[in-house]
């Protein structure tokens, strides 16, 4: 949540700049936005009309780069290196961070091997350094590194920009969550009722036993006397 606050100012800044510029003037802006160390959200910039106009023009690669940063990963970039412009080291770093975020989307436990493959890192030390310095200290990810089992357990990962279909998935997840908690509430109530009924039955049983003991005592005392 704090990441969103940190980014909010920058997003506003870039949006204002983007709406005033047009055409190829946007190139340095895109470069700046994608290399900025604290900016991870690009869908607002993508929504600015002067940026969407770039579709189909000779600067369409700019739009593609922005889209790559919004939704794609490092492997996407490697696959499409021919079409997309060369990235500067800052952008490469940013893209790798975003890749980690995407990976965290699917699993909570990320094995080192998968991470090393996705990020093009060869040894564990480098991977851990990258995770600690770039991802955890910048606050986009929170989690625990398990070196013995060679995996990274993610507790919290900042959100990336939404793909168009993701909203449906999110709604689905939310409604599932709601149904589960509703069912849980119902079963808790039943358990409470069960506990109450059981204690009632127990008290009744105790009372019955005591009554019978009293009865027998009376009959015995009558017999004796």
């Amino acid at each position: 949540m704090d990441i969103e606050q940190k980014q909010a100012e920058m997003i506003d800044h870039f949006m204002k700049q983007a709406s005033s510029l047009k055409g190829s003037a946007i190139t340095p802006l895109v470069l700046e936005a994608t290399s900025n160390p604290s900016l991870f959200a690009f869908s607002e910039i993508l929504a600015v009309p002067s940026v969407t106009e770039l579709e189909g023009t000779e600067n369409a690669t700019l739009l593609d780069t922005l889209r790559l940063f919004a939704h794609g990963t490092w492997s996407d970039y490697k696959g499409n290196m021919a079409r997309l412009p060369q990235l500067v080291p800052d952008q490469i770093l940013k893209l790798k961070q975003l890749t980690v975020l995407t990976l965290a989307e699917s699993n909570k436990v990320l094995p080192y091997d998968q991470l090393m493959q996705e990020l093009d890192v060869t040894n564990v030390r480098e991977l851990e350094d990258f995770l600690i310095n770039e991802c955890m200290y910048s606050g986009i990810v929170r989690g625990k590194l398990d070196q013995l089992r060679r995996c990274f357990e993610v507790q919290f990962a900042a959100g990336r920009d939404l793909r168009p279909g993701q909203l449906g998935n999110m709604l689905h997840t939310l409604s599932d969550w709601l149904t589960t908690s509703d069912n849980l509430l119902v079963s808790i109530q039943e358990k409470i009722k069960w506990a109450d009924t059981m204690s009632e039955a127990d008290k009744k049983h105790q009372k019955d036993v005591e009554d019978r003991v009293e009865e027998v005592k009376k009959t015995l005392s009558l017999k004796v006397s």
Partner: protein
Amino acid sequence: MASSSSSGLTFKLHPLVMVNISDHYTRVKSQMNPPGGDSAAVKAPAPPPRVYGCVIGVQRGRTVEIFNSFELLYDSATDSLDRAFLLKKQELYKKVFPNFYVLGWYSTGSDAEESDMHIHKALMDINESPVYVLLNPAINHAQKDLPVTIYESEMHVIDGIPQLIFVNSSYTIETVEAERISVDHVAHLKPSDGGSAATQLAAHLTSIHSAIKMLNSRIRVLHHYLVAMQKGEIPYENSLLRQVSSLLRRLPAIESEKFQDDFLMEYSDTLLITYLAMFTNCSSTMNELVEKFNTAYDRHSRRGGRTAFI
């Protein structure tokens, strides 16, 4: 009389103050009813008494933090508070809490009244802008938030005459750890003798139930919001959507093999212990029964002509 405040002060109220005020009110109210009650006399419902007192705390810059309160006697004849007592109490509190100042006063009732302004003005020589904390003792189950309102006095021009009127101010609740523990304790109200196992279980389950219910209602709000966004009624707000997606990714909260193993192990441990305890109980009851049987049908006493058993 009350509009919204414009002074820009932020108020922080401690729960101790509210507990003190309600305690004062309850005591006075219960002492008013004649103890034992006269069944012959018609108990006319007396108007709820108004209690008065002083609130003390700290004012740092624009933040006013109300820590504690004490009671004051209200003299309805002269329509003023007991001055000497107030000063004495203030001195005593100063010795214990040197930082605390008299920040204002409190009373109970449903709404601020004209007569309150007199008391307010009287206090203005101790603190140039006192606060007035009003507690509404009527219990309203439908109301979700606290029946406490904080009023400040402001100079407004009404009908050409500058007058002091009360204006409503918002406040937040601030707790120290000790206060939080005591409020939590009161809120749960476990049966004092520990109750039977069933009542403890029911109390525990009830607290879990209310916690999950709150979570449920908040998620429902999110759900409605997203549905509306999808239908297009609300424009897309990307930052919020990102936060929601990161939240949803935290589910399922725990789902690893190790958790299952540990959980099932603890579950079977608990069941085993319950089983063992039950066994012990059963065998001791059985032992008692056998003893009683032996005593009743002992071979030495052939009173009933019964044959001996072992």
